[in-house]
């Protein structure tokens, strides 16, 4: 081993990190993950640069990854020299002058939009950032660096114990690394929860001159963005994890199969790979050892089924991304017929923490069978949306109501596992989240999307949505999935249109279980889950659509009408102005009239009536 180059760089990094912590110039942190940018982070940076230039002030702007509470985006933090980092939420370009003026010219803490401060020392009138109700119950292991470091700066990662775990692993026999991962209880974070060590052992025990490691970053589940956030916020954690896995497997080549829809994540990975190559952490004889390994990025081309292992490999080989039967499993015969391990981004990103801190440390979190922490993207009708990390075994109630702050309206269900999962209702709120419990309920853990649904969301429509998705993404190779999902969608569409018959319920159940049993790959085998769980737990809602031709959530368009409540209408004519079809008529100051035959249910009148100051909240959608 020759770690001289790395050690020298590490010493420099420590110094630079210290300088960064004891900044002489003011520091401005802006969250610039994809979500922060969508919320307007680029405009804010522009406004800041203009302000600083006009006032001839000096400051450094640091672009950090997502720290988690997306609903507070854009997040802007300011750290004046010798002071602590203070965080502000929902900043707009208009707020920038006042915010900067307070810090730079008045030397005081700006109060509006204040979230909290980082660091140990208390500041009067400013809460601690990590005491925020969304953050306090979390345990941040894989996300430890997200939002804290500059993801483009290798020194930041190195200064926070980066690449220590691979250094440590390289002097251990591979069996010992495997043993550590085994004892940590780590299971695949992509959804199925297969023990990571076992997959590795299968691969390692297969005789071959070459073995491959693939990182599955084809985060295809709609409503899930954990992998994107991790790569954007801390790309080196993934790379270090890949090095550890590759060393244990004896893999010589690695691929990161990532969605083309994640351009920022791809860019950050590319730049991170180039940086570690310079430090001898990639390529021939890594850190002077016998271990050689290289990583190539493969951009996906937009096919959900490529998240399935065998389809993913076909795609890397340049073919149509169609799955094949297993066995042989990829660990025995995978990419180009060679033993291959496919691990999820989060699984790999967790490894450096396990190797650095030990198996016992990691296994202290979680339940008997599901150890450690899991990241979730908490979205939908919950108050505090964002990316979270909690120990496995945490109850859905704690996640949705304590971390997520509950809902504005009544809770109806939480959808887990994306298109392969299901909707779980109130009765599951106290269920600890782990692989077994979610499977027993008919759903799956999946990659970590948690979509909260309230009483305004229609369960039948949601089931139709997921089935339409899997139907469109079915690769077409096997009949049960190709034809079966099409029929499920047709029946659900019929029900949503108010044309359902009572026999349809039985048809859905029978067809669903046939598809589950007979499909070739995971996509088909799990595709009926959304409709089967919904039928199990929300049967009365299906019955309302079929028997009463009513949509209780007032969502299904063929079953709802728009109506003006006469007592509330102020005759402001705002709805008349926005109606695209002239369905609403009426002179000013008189009660308006809505002609149902002309109404296309576009929602314009409903929105303006609710949000316009002079309107009276008089338009309702009912079924």
């Amino acid at each position, binding site marked *: 081993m020759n770690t001289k180059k790395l050690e020298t760089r590490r010493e420099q990094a420590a110094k630079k990190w210290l300088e960064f912590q004891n900044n002489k110039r003011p520091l401005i942190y802006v969250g610039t993950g*994809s*979500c922060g*940018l*969508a*919320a*307007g982070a680029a405009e804010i940076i522009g406004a800041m640069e203009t302000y600083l230039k006009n006032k001839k002030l000096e400051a450094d702007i640091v672009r950090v990854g997502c720290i988690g509470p*997306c*609903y507070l985006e854009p997040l802007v933090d300011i750290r004046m020299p010798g002071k602590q980092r203070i965080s502000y939420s929902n900043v707009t370009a208009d707020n920038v002058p006042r915010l900067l003026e307070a810090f730079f010219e008045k030397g005081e803490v700006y109060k509006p939009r204040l979230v909290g401060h980082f660091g140990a020392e208390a500041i009067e009138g400013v809460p601690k950032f990590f005491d925020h109700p969304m953050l306090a119950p979390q345990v941040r292991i894989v996300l430890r660096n997200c939002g804290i470091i500059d993801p483009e700066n290798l020194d930041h990662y190195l200064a926070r114990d980066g690449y220590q775990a691979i250094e440590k692993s390289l002097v251990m026999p591979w069996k010992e690394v495997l043993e550590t991962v085994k004892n940590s209880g780590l299971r695949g974070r992509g959804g199925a929860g297969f023990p990571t060590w076992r997959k590795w052992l299968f691969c390692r025990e297969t005789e071959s001159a070459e073995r491959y490691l693939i990182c599955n970053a084809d*985060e*295809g*589940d*709609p*409503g*899930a*963005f954990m992998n*994107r956030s991790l790569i954007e916020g801390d790309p080196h954690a993934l790379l270090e994890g890949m090095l550890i896995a590759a060393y244990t497997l004896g893999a010589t080549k690695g691929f990161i199969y990532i969605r*083309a*829809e*994640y351009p920022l994540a791809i860019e950050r990975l590319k730049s991170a790979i180039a940086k570690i190559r310079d430090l001898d952490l990639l390529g021939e004889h890594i850190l002077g050892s016998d271990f050689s390994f290289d990583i190539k990025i*493969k*951009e996906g*081309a*937009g*096919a*959900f089924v490529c998240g399935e292992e065998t389809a993913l490999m076909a*795609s*890397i*080989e*340049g*073919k*149509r*991304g*169609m799955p094949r039967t297993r066995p042989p499993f990829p660990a025995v015969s995978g990419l180009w017929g060679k033993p291959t391990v496919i691990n999820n981004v989060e699984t790999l990103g967790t490894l450096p923490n396990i190797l650095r801190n030990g198996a016992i440390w990691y296994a202290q979190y979680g339940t008997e069978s599901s150890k450690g922490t899991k990241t979730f*993207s908490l*979205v*939908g*009708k919950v108050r505090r*949306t*964002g*990316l979270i990390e909690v120990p496995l075994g945490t109850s859905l109630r704690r996640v949705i109501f304590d971390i997520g702050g509950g809902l504005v309206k009544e809770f109806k269900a939480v*959808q887990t596992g*994306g298109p392969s999962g299901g909707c779980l209702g109130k009765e599951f709120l106290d269920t600890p989240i782990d692989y077994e419990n979610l499977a027993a309920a008919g759903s799956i853990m999946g990659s970590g*999307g948690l*979509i909260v*649904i309230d009483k305004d*969301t229609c369960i039948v429509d*949601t089931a139709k*949505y*997921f089935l339409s*998705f899997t139907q469109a993404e079915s*690769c077409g190779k096997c009949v049960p999935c190709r034809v079966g999902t099409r029929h499920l969608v047709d029946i659900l569409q019929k029900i949503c249109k108010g044309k359902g018959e009572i026999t349809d319920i039985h048809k859905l159940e029978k067809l669903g279980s046939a598809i589950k049993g007979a499909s070739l790959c995971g996509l088909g085998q799990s595709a009926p889950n959304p409709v089967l769980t919904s039928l199990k737990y929300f049967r009365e809602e299906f019955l309302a659509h079929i028997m009463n031709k009513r949509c209780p959530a007032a969502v299904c368009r063929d079953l709802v009408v728009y109506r003006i409540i006469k007592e509330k209408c102020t005759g402001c004519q705002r709805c008349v102005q*926005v109606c*695209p079809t002239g369905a609403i008529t009426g002179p000013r100051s008189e009660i308006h009239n809505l002609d149902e035959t002309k109404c*296309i249910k*576009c*929602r*314009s009148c409903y*929105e*303006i009536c609710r*949000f316009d100051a002079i309107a009276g909240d008089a338009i309702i959608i009912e079924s």
Partner: protein
Amino acid sequence: MKKEALAEIEREFKGERADLIPVLQRIQAIYDYLPKEAIRKTARWLKISENEIYGVATFYAQFRFGPRGKHHLKVCLGTACHVNGGEQMLEVLKRRLEINPGETTADGKYDLERVVCLGCCALAPVVTFDDKTYAQMSVLKLQGILDEHKKA
């Protein structure tokens, strides 16, 4: 056909079967779609039949076979966007632009696409207009954006 562009791609890759998808991605990055001529040349270069290349290219949602509009509108219909009203956003654009997803307006100005999850679920529903992402959209906000753009 830009001859030098294809020659440059040929230099970038080894010309293996596994390069097919990255090569097609590079071609699309240059031409914005996959021209017939480029596919024919790729077939000869990689020694894969044109049929097979079309087989691969049509399998993936990313590839297009004709030119797009000048401006690109995308409506996200991921789960979070769906439950927060993404479908209504698509309806607005279909009505206003008089096209269906996957089509381009007659004047070649706009094209419309429905996408499944852009990964900004916490800000749903999301619509993108060229490179700009609009978060927490409503029917009225979206119409406002269209009006402003049409004026400009």
